[in-house]
């Protein structure tokens, strides 16, 4: 990261400590105030306990929402957490980071009424937090099968897969390129969605099942090949995410002040002191997804004065939901539509601004100390012989790749929607498929148990 404060002529302005550490800390406090027990009871009572509930259908992991909410309403938060974690071992993260306004809460039949959907996300958080506080354990490991499975990447897909495999009695070795587990939960989600080191607490809860080891700092494709893993293990699951950010394809992208949004967020999430982060006075974000909103909002909360998101298409095309867009607008962020970056303005290798071509008006220039690229990421080529589809790994409904014995899930596969909750589902489905594949030739009596009912 670039920590230079300004260029010699003072034309750009990137500085640390734009706000006091205390102010930063307040700005990055919990996005949503969690429910207390009374609030949860009252909200849970709003649930109609629908038959064939649309919220459950809308959940990529199929959490039985009416069932867990009824448990909350009956003062059984532990049972509720069990219901949630049974389908989604990262129910805690999803309760914080899921775009519920486009998933379960959008499907809630209460939307037809004046007071809006049941706040499913916050109820899920209430139950999972309560169980975590009370250190309730929901899973027991089946007797060891002796099989060893390699999992590439300790993100939501990899850990969900590893956990389910461990429950089923398999030994799992996770290969993680970073120094910590959690994937985007640890390095990618906006800080105000994951306060109090929640990602690591959740990882600890997942690993408590036993039977899962993690090797850190190992990158598949560089340090080890897929073929190596196939030799060492009985099955392989790839949940490596997308490691490579798209570029703008403009000259001077290496100039000081041109940043990759996910890299900045990565540093932000690991920062000891938020006020140590260099922040531009005028920030331009290119992109239209959740990352664009997250980097824009976080820049603003770190003290950037003027933050503009520029998106090449219209408001209705943005991947960021209406809710996220309005969140950005409420933070004083401007969103400009139908404009594409044409040219980075650079003086002496230092960014000063960016020119845009508008498809709906005149071209324009924005002065900028920092331009963030938030236009998506691509799969780092594994050179492994896996069949790709649209540059991502092709899998079938069981998450099986084109290579026998290799499964994949999460952001690295084709057809994914880049959501943690979908990655968890991929990992879960893959684990079940791996289990069936490994144990297919055993007689039923020697088959390991199904996951215990929490």
């Amino acid at each position, binding site marked *: 990261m670039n920590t230079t404060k300004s260029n010699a002529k003072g034309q750009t302005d990137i500085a640390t400590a734009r706000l006091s550490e205390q102010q930063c800390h307040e700005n990055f406090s919990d996005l949503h105030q969690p429910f207390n027990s009374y609030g949860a009871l009252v909200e849970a009572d709003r649930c109609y306990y629908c038959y064939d*509930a649309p919220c459950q259908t809308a959940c990529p992991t199929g959490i039985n929402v009416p069932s867990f909410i009824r448990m909350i309403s009956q003062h059984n938060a532990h049972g509720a957490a069990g219901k949630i974690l049974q389908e989604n071992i990262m129910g805690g993260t999803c309760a914080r980071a899921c775009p519920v306004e486009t998933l379960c809460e959008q499907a809630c*039949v209460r939307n037809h009424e004046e007071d809006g959907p049941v706040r499913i996300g916050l109820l899920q958080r209430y139950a999972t937090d309560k169980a975590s506080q009370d250190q309730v354990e929901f899973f027991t490991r089946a007797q060891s099968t002796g099989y060893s499975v390699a999992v590439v990447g300790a993100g939501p897909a990899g850990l969900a897969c590893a956990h389910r495999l461990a429950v089923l009695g398999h030994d799992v070795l996770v290969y993680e390129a970073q120094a910590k587990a959690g994937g985007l939960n640890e390095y990618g989600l906006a800080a105000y969605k994951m306060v109090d080191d929640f990602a690591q607490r959740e990882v600890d809860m997942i690993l408590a099942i036993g039977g899962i080891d993690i090797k850190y700092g190992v990158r598949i494709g560089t340090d080890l090949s897929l073929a190596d893993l196939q030799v060492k293990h009985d099955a392989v699951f790839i949940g490596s995410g997308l490691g490579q950010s798209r570029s703008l394809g403009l000259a001077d992208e290496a100039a000081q002040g041109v940043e990759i949004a996910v890299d900045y967020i990565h540093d932000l999430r690991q920062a000891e002191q938020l006020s140590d982060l260099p922040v531009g006075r005028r920030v331009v974000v290119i992109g239209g997804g959740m990352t664009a909103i997250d980097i824009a909002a976080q820049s603003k909360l770190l003290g950037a004065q003027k933050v503009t998101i520029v998106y090449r298409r219209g408001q209705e095309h943005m991947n960021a939901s209406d809710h996220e867009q309005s969140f950005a607008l409420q933070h004083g962020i401007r969103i400009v539509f139908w404009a594409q970056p044409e040219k980075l303005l650079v003086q002496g290798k230092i960014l000063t601004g960016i020119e845009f071509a508008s498809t709906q008006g005149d071209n324009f220039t924005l002065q900028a100390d920092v331009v963030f690229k938030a236009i998506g990421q691509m799969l780092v080529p594994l050179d492994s012989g896996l069949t790709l589809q649209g540059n991502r790994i092709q899998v079938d409904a069981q998450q099986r790749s084109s290579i026998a014995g290799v499964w994949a899930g999460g952001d690295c596969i084709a057809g994914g929607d880049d959501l943690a909750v979908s990655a968890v589902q991929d990992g879960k489905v893959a684990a079940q498929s791996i289990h069936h594949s490994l144990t297919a030739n055993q007689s039923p009596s020697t088959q390991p148990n199904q996951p215990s009912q929490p």
Partner: protein
Amino acid sequence: MIDLKSNFIGIVTPNPFWLASAPPTDKAYNINRAFEAGWGGVMWKTLGEAGPPVVNVSGPRYGAWHGKDRSLMGFNNIELITDRSLDINLEEIRQVKKDWPDRGVVVSLMVPCEEQAWKDILMQVEDTGADGIELNFGCPHGMSERGMGAAVGQVPEYVEMVAAWCKQYSQMPVIVKLTPNITDIRTSARAAVRGGADAVSMINTINSVMGVDIDTMRMSPTIGEQGAHGGYCGPAVKPIAMHMVSEVARDAECGGIPISAIGGISTWRDTAEFMALGATNVQVCTAVMTHGFSIVEDMIDGLSRCLADKNMTCLEDLIGAAVPSVTDWSQLNLNYVVKAEIDQDLCIKCGRCYIVCEDTSHQAISTLINGARGFEVIDKECVGCNLCVNVCPVENCISLRELKPGEIDERTGMPVSSEYRNWTQHPNNPMNAGG
């Protein structure tokens, strides 16, 4: 606005809203506040005989059953009759009646089932200028263990006997307060009529245990380590009270004896319902113990507007208006056929109607409309039971449509008859053998 002037057995008050004999009417201080708020009359909290006052517990006297939002649905108490001295009560009654001549002051009484005991207290109460007496034959806890309250109300002969003494030894109107802790309320009401009572009031509270603390494995609330059953009241008992009021209102033997209704009355609408079922006035307790006396403001305003809306000019137009609609099951028209209908514009597709009909009733609701998730009634299976209407969270989304005479009931395949036919006339009734 319609004048709510009320005449209850000759006691004229500005409105029919009375406070029931209970903690809110224990002393002049409370009652003055109630009259300032606008209440029409009070039943002074039950007096006992002269001598050492009764002793109440110093632990919890009340228990509650709450909805999820802490709304109070049911309430119970183990408080006894007044624990203040008889003389102080009598003096306050005298003063209150003097200060509020336009309001009703009736004194609730409970003394042992001995003629002299009643004779003594009747003289003293009559001397205060009170408008009447209410005989507490209903209190189901504490006093009933000593042979008073509900212990009297549960024996029709005692009810008749004491009512007769009261008529004999005083000029005051006599109201007999009935206990619901019996099999048939009419038996007690008829006894009161035979004893010469001017009116009955009902219902007193219902025997109840509010709950169990499953951490301590003790019933709740407890006084130290043990608790005792209390009297249940509040919104939850309203349907029970309405049934009892309507039974007495339509009972020939009761001869139209005036009824003062009690039991979960919290609003002007509750009041209108009880009066339509035959009550002349109403008594309120739990609602003021939940919200304070000021709720009478809305009760007065709402009831007055309600009468105007129904083109009624006085309370007498309302009293008993719904009594003819109450009958016995055997008189119901078995040729009346309805089918549930779901308004698809209002339906929010929660599926509650489907699952309750499927799991617990007649499998008369389908889950797909043109291949998409949606809920429709299957007329061929629907018996018109009303369950779907009751569980639907959207008001008026599901309604019952009456089939016209001649229309085919798809469930039976038969045309609906215009003829009224009840069970006594039905061919399946074994009592009609050969008929």
